């Protein structure tokens, strides 16, 4: 044994190694061997599952993109269907209404004459007219839809009015649709504004318009076309006399003499005592 321990400078010792191997004989218990081997086999057996996992992993990005696209298309479709209801302000579509208000009038040469540009909010207009039931004007959902429909009906009414201006020589107060058109309300509001300067004539105009609206409430909404055309003149009748005369003068300046005369005749019927300006006498006759 003595030679075992003499070689102190080396990192190997054959005798010590042999003695260690003879002494160290511990082994793991057989149960542990079996458990480890079984686990190793299970790990290999679960390989097909990992293959499917890698398949899912490889398709994860395309599937995600497809899902996002489907969601996006669905959302856009739903938003398109519901956008008008969501995006409408309580006042309806003011821009569209303005466009409709000015568009047909320009076509007929009545540049903003049919409806003055008064920025009266819809609620205020309704209040000033005072014909809409409180429940209807105050409600949110149905009221929104009504306020949205009103400008469209008003636009139709204005188109009819423009045509009637040119065609109807003797306008008469005509029934309005059941729903009050915005221009009528606007005209009434303008009447309020005008009443500061000319209270008497404005009151007359308001009375006229109120009378017409009362008739409109009685008349069914599905009125015959002729009465609708006659009703198209109604807003003009609600104008203050001076304003009306200004517009007649404007028509004349534009060379639409026939229309100007027709409108003047209508004016004279409405306001027989109102004195015409001197410039009218040159072309309007006695």
């Amino acid at each position, binding site marked *: *044994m*003595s030679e*075992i*321990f003499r070689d*102190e*400078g*080396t*990192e*190997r*010792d054959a005798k*010590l*190694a042999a*003695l*260690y*191997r*003879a*002494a*160290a004989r*511990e*082994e*793991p*218990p057989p149960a*542990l*061997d079996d*458990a*480890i*081997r079984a*686990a*190793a*086999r299970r*790990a*290999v*057996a679960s*390989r097909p599952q*990992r293959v499917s996992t890698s398949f899912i992993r490889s398709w994860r990005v395309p599937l995600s993109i497809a899902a996002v696209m489907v969601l996006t298309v669905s959302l856009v479709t739903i938003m398109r269907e519901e956008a008008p209801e969501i995006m409408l302000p309580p006042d309806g579509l003011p821009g569209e209404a303005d466009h409709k208000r000015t568009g047909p009038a320009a076509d007929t040469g009545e540049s903003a004459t049919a409806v003055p540009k008064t920025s009266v909010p819809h609620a205020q207009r309704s209040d000033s007219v005072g014909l809409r039931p409180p429940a209807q004007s105050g409600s949110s959902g149905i009221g929104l839809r009504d306020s949205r429909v009103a400008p469209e009906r008003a636009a139709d009414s204005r188109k009819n009015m423009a045509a009637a201006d040119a065609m109807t020589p003797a306008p008469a107060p005509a029934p309005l649709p059941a729903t009050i058109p915005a221009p009528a309300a606007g005209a009434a509001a303008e009447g309020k504004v005008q009443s500061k300067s000319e209270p008497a004539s404005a009151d007359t105009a308001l009375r006229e318009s109120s009378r017409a609206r009362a008739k409109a409430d009685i008349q069914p909404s599905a009125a015959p076309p002729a009465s609708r055309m006659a009703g198209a003149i109604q807003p003009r009748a609600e104008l203050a006399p001076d304003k009306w005369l200004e517009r007649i003068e404007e028509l004349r300046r534009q060379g639409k003499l026939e229309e100007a005369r027709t409108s003047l005749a209508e004016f004279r019927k409405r306001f027989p005592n109102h004195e015409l300006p001197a410039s009218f006498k040159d072309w309007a006759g006695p």
Partner: protein
Amino acid sequence: MATAQNSSDEELMERYRDGDAGAFDLLYGRHKGGLFRYMLRQCGSRGIAEELFQEVWMNLTRARRTYTVQAKFTTYLYRLAHNRLIDHYRSQAGGVPVSFEDDDCPALDSIAGERRDDPALGADHRQQAERLLQLIDALPEAQREAFLLQQESDMSVEEIAKTAGVSRETAKSRLRYAFAKLREGMQEFQ
């Protein structure tokens, strides 16, 4: 099967990676004893050694998909064992033994005289073996690890350094001091 038995550890591990469960059985049979004894000597408790031993093999099966031959299989296997052992030390109250942190070994002069006065030592071979195991247990952990890696897996100094994550010089120093202590302890059998 004869071909598989002649295969190197690295080839067997590659075959196991590719789904050959029989290759694992061969690998396990070759290295289970050495690894178990390494764990047993390093942690001192049979129960803990069995637990750590099993975890090392489980780590090996989980890591097989990324296995590539970059070193000897034994270096790879015992590196897993070393890391698991360090984690075990960290979870204990004493933490990682100082000998793993300290690259400088004590002077050879201080080694002499340890356990010389053990009255239970005999003169026969069995007594020498028991005495050697006692001396191994008394070694600092890092030196014991170096000795066990050499004896159980026949590693070179370089491979021991790689497995323990230290420089070659440190591994060589640990090994030399381990032998010096063991020789010193076995002097009484001269």
